[in-house]
């Protein structure tokens, strides 16, 4: 594959992530904040997010495993995860968190546990998608190319 093909593949893949709702415009904001002086900004923020989300998901698992669930605590974890997923544009994770908070409010343990599974799944899905995307970026850069600017493409 030449650089041109790699870049086209990257564009198509990125578009699909937006169209399938994995990412929203906030992710584009992150991309726009990346430049020659901060070439790894997106990877860095995304990495921080997944470290943080893993921690929160573990905390949530533990909290929902308790004989008497502290819904205020569970809600505070979900609130944090909703905030950080929103900040990176991980839209499906964010939406799963919104549903989760409703069950917290209702103090519905089963509902919460189901939501936790949903959030875990969405988190894993977007993690895999982004890892694929970043791998493509590495290949483009290694081949001497540059990562396309979504704004310039008119997306």
């Amino acid at each position, binding site marked *: 594959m030449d650089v041109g093909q790699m870049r086209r593949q990257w564009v198509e893949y990125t578009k699909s992530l937006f169209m399938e709702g994995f990412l929203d415009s906030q992710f584009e904001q992150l991309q726009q904040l990346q430049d020659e002086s901060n070439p790894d900004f997106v990877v*860095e923020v995304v990495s921080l997010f997944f470290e943080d989300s893993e921690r929160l998901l573990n905390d949530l698992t533990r909290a929902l495993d308790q004989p008497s669930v502290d819904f205020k605590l569970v809600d505070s974890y979900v609130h944090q995860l909703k905030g*950080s997923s*929103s900040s990176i544009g991980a839209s499906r994770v964010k939406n799963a968190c919104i549903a989760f908070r409703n069950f917290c409010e209702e103090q519905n343990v089963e509902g919460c546990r189901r939501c936790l599974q949903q959030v875990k799944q969405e988190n894993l899905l977007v993690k895999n998608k982004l890892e694929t995307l970043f791998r493509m970026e590495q290949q483009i850069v290694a081949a001497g190319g540059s990562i396309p600017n979504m704004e310039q493409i008119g997306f």
Partner: protein
Amino acid sequence: MGVAVKPNQFHVLAVDDSIIDRKLIERLLKTSSYQVTAVDSGSKALEFLGLIDEDHEQEDADIPSVSPKNLNQDIEVNLIITDYCMPEMTGYDLLRKIKESKSLKDIPVVIMSSENVPSRINRCLEEGAEEFFLKPVQMEDVSKLRPHMMRNKAKDDEPNINKRKGMEEENQSPERTRTKYNNSLEDVQLVVGDL
């Protein structure tokens, strides 16, 4: 925590307990050529601002002597931007402490929140916050910060003129909401508008 602030650059203190949001706000602010210090709590912010205990401000030699005005040029903070929802000390608590402090009350404060709660927004604006940004914060939000910092800097240079209230010829009036622009403070309405 020695910070060398370049003389003609504005220095923003960012406060957020989320590491992701701290990284994001730091990048947004640096893109606008501001110097940034980011801390993860209200108490760390107050520590940085030298307000552990106002009476003993200068006593502890380990803490750099900090002043927002011209008493000590080593560290100057031109604006504080803080998250609302933080454990222990909320952004609102921090705002109040700053406004209650003789030495810090004139530093413009901006609040950020992921939740659009009109009563919360109004409470912060009434307590003296200059702006209230909904998260995730955008470049266009950050572009609204400069007038507040410039007004504050101008105030330092002309101590007898209170530029926060009343008409302002050269600078835009403080925008108390995200959507309203008024020339006179009388007309400023603490209404949430199009939020």
